[in-house]
């Protein structure tokens, strides 16, 4: 769908969602607005919307485009609603666990034997964050983080606005510990955006440094010139030049000083069948993991090389699991650069404790298992 088409679809859906009656007539959209919409969007009871400036003159149609007042109002109203939701996922396949195994690298050739210990009703919490980076420019991105309160893992998921597999479900007396899950999501956002934020920081500070150097060079040389020309000269002049220098420095800071903020947009609880599984490796090691039917993410495995938690997984004879990327590079000396690490079990969580255990039950030499030290 074109960008203009997507905008039109959003506007029509959002207005309908607010209770307005919509009728599309050629290039214009006609809206009959209830009182609440009239008040919130500052519009009359009946009005037209145009998506091209040339059409906005006809019937006094309100222009909808980036930067238009109407769109700003509509986005503000829309994002003030729908900030939490609870939904349920019922898998269509009876044997969804087997399907997850083969997708994740646990086929019969892997030599890993999974044993389903139990299938329970699990919960995931999805946190939507808007990341905003500002200096002389503004960069924004949207991040959706899934948190499993059970095992304490958190990872980024791709936003799927059309997730029609979910059905509304609002259990009575559902009061999850959002604070703890939020903290995990918070850390996952930091991990997820670290590279982006660092790049932005380097760019902005580089520009600031260049600007500050130029300002100092100019004013210091100017001051030196004034002093040299007239050593007994007016102190007022020197002070004026210094004041101007300070003003320019303040302007440079105002322009290039980087700022990074994330704001929580929404929370969603997803109820989905979750399997507790024991994996038995060829070498005799075992690991207890969780996997849910909705995200299908294997939670509880840690790559022995990079300590990442992203599948798919690879298993060599008698070795512990490796993520696909480490297996492909066979690089054992250091974790690959820029490798995703979000979702790594945190110190003290159940997942951290149960990551991979030797057959004798002692904790394996895993950094993840021993705490949050996740390599350079």
């Amino acid at each position: 769908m074109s960008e203009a088409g997507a905008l039109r679809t959003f506007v029509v859906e959002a207005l309908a969602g607010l209770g307005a009656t919509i009728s599309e007539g050629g290039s214009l959209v006609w809206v009959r607005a209830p009182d609440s919409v009239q008040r919130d969007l500052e519009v009359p009871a009946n009005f037209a919307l145009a998506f091209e400036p040339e059409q906005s003159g006809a019937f006094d149609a309100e222009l909808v485009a980036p930067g238009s007042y109407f769109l700003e109002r509509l986005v503000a109203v829309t994002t003030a609603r729908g900030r939490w939701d609870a939904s349920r996922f019922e898998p269509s396949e009876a044997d969804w666990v087997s399907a997850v195994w083969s997708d994740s690298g646990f086929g019969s050739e892997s030599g890993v034997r999974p044993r389903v210990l139990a299938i329970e009703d699990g919960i995931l919490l999805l946190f939507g964050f808007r990341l905003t980076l500002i200096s002389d420019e503004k960069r924004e991105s949207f991040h959706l983080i899934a948190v499993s309160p059970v095992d304490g893992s958190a990872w980024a998921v791709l936003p799927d606005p059309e997730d029609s597999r979910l059905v509304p479900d609002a259990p009575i007396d559902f009061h999850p510990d959002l604070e703890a899950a939020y903290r995990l999501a918070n850390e996952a956002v930091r991990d997820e955006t670290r590279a982006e934020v660092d790049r932005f920081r380097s760019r902005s500070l580089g520009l600031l440094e260049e600007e500050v150097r130029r300002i100092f060079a100019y004013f210091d040389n100017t001051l030196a010139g004034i002093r040299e020309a007239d050593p007994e000269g007016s102190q007022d002049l020197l002070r004026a030049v210094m004041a101007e220098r300070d003003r320019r420095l303040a302007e440079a800071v105002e322009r290039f000083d980087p700022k990074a903020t994330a704001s929580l947009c929404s929370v969603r609880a997803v109820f989905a069948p979750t399997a507790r599984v024991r994996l038995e490796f060829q070498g005799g090691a075992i690991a207890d993991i969780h996997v849910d039917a909705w995200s299908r993410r294997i939670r509880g495995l840690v790559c022995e090389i990079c300590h990442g938690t992203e599948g798919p997984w690879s298993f060599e004879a008698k070795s512990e699991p490796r993520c696909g990327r480490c297996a492909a590079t066979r690089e054992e000396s250091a974790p690959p650069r820029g490798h995703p690490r979000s979702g790594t079990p945190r110190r003290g969580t159940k997942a951290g404790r149960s990551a991979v255990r030797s057959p004798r039950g002692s904790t394996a030499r895993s950094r993840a298992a021993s705490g949050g030290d996740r390599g350079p």
Partner: protein
Amino acid sequence: MSLPPREPPLSADASLSLRFDDADRNLLARAFRTPSDGPLAWRLNGEGHRISLVDGFDRLLAWPSLRGVARYEHQERTVFRILREMHGRGILADEVGLGKTIEAGLVLKEYAIRGLVRRALILTPAALTGQWREEMAEKFSLPFAVLHSVRDWDRRPLLIASMDTAKREPHRRAAQSRPWDLVVVDEAHRLKNRLSLNWQFVAGLSKKYMLLLTATPVQNDMDELFNLVSLLTPGQLHTYDRFLERYVASADRRVPTHVSELRGRLRDVMVRNRRGIAFTLPPRRVHSLAVRLSAAERHLYDDVTQFVRDAYWSSSGRLPWTARLTLTVLQREIGSSTFAVAETLRRLAQSPLFGPDDRDRLDGLRQDAVAIASNVKASRLRTFLESLNEKVLIFTQYRRTLEYLRGVLEADGHRVAAYHGGLSPVAKDEAVRTFQAGADVFLSTEAGGEGRNLQFARTVVNYDLPWNPLRIEQRIGRVHRLGQEREVHVVNVWAEDTVEAYLIELLDRKIHMFELVVGELDLILGNLEARRPFEDLMMDIWVLRQAEERRTALRRLGESLVRARGQYEQVKERNDAVLGDVSEAVPT
């Protein structure tokens, strides 16, 4: 050094910490305590956020919301350079007529959409404040207010102020004590002198981004260029002493040296689109349709003129401003048509501005005007249109003249699209569409399609001549603009022995105004020694009682205009010599 009380810019180079919004706690406390708005609302929440995300300046977001702004590559390229390479501080030094105002508006709008500019100040010459306000409102939907009182500095986040007002107390202090996200200075060559109030005022403003607009950064000597650039990015051209040593060749500081290196430094802070590089406009051809008024029209014209002169000089004291304006209107209307002047004569015949004798005289004039059924100028226009086989724009200043012409032309079988200030926006759109689709005549008052694309026509008829030459230029600019590919014809209809004949003498014969590029005239008039509106200068001459006095005054004004044009040409050449290809080597 004393920096403002905030985090130091280069503090230990620690990594930028991602701060989480305090409002998050509020959401966490409320979520799942009350019923949700449903899954659709949850999805639309995410959609709303995603649809409003911005990602740097990867593309321009403003275009879809602009009205009546054609999309030109050189303007888009310029805006990208200001946003991406100059980080919001640059000199827009396009040659006249290439759309510096549009470029500045685009930069402003892009910042505003991203929430990076919330407080903006536009500083202009006093005469241009209204024009800026209109352009920002109509084309960019940016509700700027023109400064009227010192309280406006607090109340108006988007403000237009005349430089002359803003730089003086109490405005100066008020302007400088507030932070501005963006400051735009139009006619920025007025900042050429570092010691001037203008320069000191702008330097003292606290601003994040700044745009300086001027077609002629160098008016006289190289110092001016240094002062302008230093205001924007001090050090870009070294210190003043080093600048003189390196880039100025002559003692009088007019001749540059190491020009290539200098231009290289200027490219970092200046965009200069030139006609030959950005585009070339086709030439203009000027045609004169001079007419001799009929005996009745001549009689009426001379009587109205005599009344104006008598009223102008008969006042016991200084003529009130309103009376002076009324007389000017009367004289301008009789230059347009007898139909235009008749209604004003009727009104004035009942006005307390004039005594009983004058009112009787005015009523007599009204009767004479009403008795004239047709105008010679219209007959001449009809003959001209018979010889023309293409669409034509006909401009008049007055609605009554427009209605008269509409009747005459429609009777001749022309399809006329009438456009005037009394039409609703929808009717205006319809008039433009009718002209584009089938009508052969676009008959318009001064409101004639400002900002609309009428370049599919190429002939402009000035049925009457506004005394303000910039108005004439705006009319021509409706078709002689970016996008016009054919030679443009300007046809002036005027009567002998009238004010309009004086205008033709001055503007056409003396300075060849009709062949100038849009924007140049403004700069020429700005060089006139007499710092008064051109209309007033015309009226001053016309009301002189003796013909010889009028001829002498007209000759002096003509000489003054010729000097102003020469001065403009010199400045233009100087800028080309110094700045030359400042933009040519810029990769796009």
